[in-house]
């Protein structure tokens, strides 16, 4: 029996100053990463509040990844340090509620790391594909 292949929906929040440019670089260098990744540009990774992550899942994301500047390299000096603490606590809490820990990730990708961006996305998409559809943080109304 032929199963329809599961194509996950991935939301990637990318910092304007680094990983968004990293994504650009990946494109310029013709490095492939899956089309399932939907990039949302943010001015700094710390612009992403926990609600954004949850809302992405509500609206149908199967995985959410947040990309920012490497610690120490924040365009605004310290934004990504706060991101790091917030997401550490949030992801830990989501896992505490029984949400698969593989569904969320934070990755530091600089503007020069086009290759890392593509590799990260490929890896994350593969991970979510293996994990399957997001059932535990879904909103059924959005799936109708």
């Amino acid at each position: 029996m032929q199963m329809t292949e599961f194509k996950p929906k991935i939301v990637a929040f990318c910092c304007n100053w680094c990983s968004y440019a990293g994504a650009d670089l990946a494109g310029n260098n013709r490095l492939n990463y899956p089309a399932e990744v939907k990039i949302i540009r943010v001015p700094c990774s710390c612009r992403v509040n926990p609600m954004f992550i949850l809302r992405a899942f509500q609206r149908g994301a199967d995985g959410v990844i947040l990309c920012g500047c490497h610690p120490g390299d924040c365009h605004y000096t310290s934004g990504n340090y706060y991101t790091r603490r917030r997401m550490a606590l949030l992801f830990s809490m989501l896992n505490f509620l029984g949400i698969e820990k593989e569904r969320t990730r934070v990755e530091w990708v600089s503007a020069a790391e086009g290759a890392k961006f593509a590799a990260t996305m490929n890896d994350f998409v593969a991970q979510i594909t293996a994990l399957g559809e997001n059932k535990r943080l879904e909103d059924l109304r959005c799936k109708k």
Partner: protein
Amino acid sequence: MRKCSTANLDALLRTIAENASLYLPVDGTDGRAHFTKWEDGVKMSDALNTVRSAKDFFFPQTENLMDFKVEGKTIEIIDTREECEDFVIFGVRACDVRSFDILDRVFLVDPVDTYYKNRREHGIIVSMACTRPSETCFCRTFGIDAANPGGDIVCYKEEDAWYFDALTEKGQALLSKLESLTEECDTAAVDAQKDLIRERMDKLPLADLTADAFGGDKLNTYFNAPEWKSLSQSCLGCGTCTFVCPTCQCYDIKDFKTNKGVQRFRCWDSCMYSDFTKMAHGNNRTSQLERFRQRFMHKLVYFPANNEGIFGCVGCGRCLSRCPISMNIVKVMKELGGNA
């Protein structure tokens, strides 16, 4: 009057559940009773009452009203109403049964709320007398007899048997399906239980509470009463009392954007919330005192003014045990009515 031996009760419930969804109070993992769908092995709770009232069956906390499909400038309205299935609520107490009459006076008056009506028509209520009323009970204040609850069928639980009596045609029809599991009996046991219940009701701490000081004509007596200030002082403005209340029926209508369209749903709302009456250019109740007053004035004055003196409270006592700061309608009545 029909009698079913306690040993046969499971079989009786099974027979009911064959034709309709059957709900009854069941102890949850939190140790409290909640209306739960019956299936084999489910044991009915001994608790006096459920945490949430039975109003949910007819007026659920949220329900979808309609869907919209929006494309460009055009809108398509999709009526999502469906004929609801028959269901039976078993073990409803006298107070909650009365609450349906109160809700009927809101939802079934013209223009009829068809969502509510649909459920009401398909629901059968099996009520149950209260042999162990609690200290928070004051249904008698509103003329409710815990020994004689309404509904379609009334039941009385004794050690060895359950007694059933049909009160409506709907109830008669259901009871006749249970004939093989029940036998005709006299009313001696039930009469004895009724006497016991009334005797116990007499002794309840709130047995003497009356609502005589309230009614539709008492607006000016109470609206500007100075007592509202101290009564509402520590109110948190949460919605607990409203949401556990069997007669609170205010609702909100909201839109939810799904990924493909718009769902318009309604959900319970609370007059205790600060944004209840807020509109684009103002709010006519800006203080918690006003909101607090609205809730109690509505139950004790405004509702009776429009409904031949019937109060909008059934004395179930849920707000007495659930309010985070232990402020409730009994304290309000005593403070205002002066019959402490």
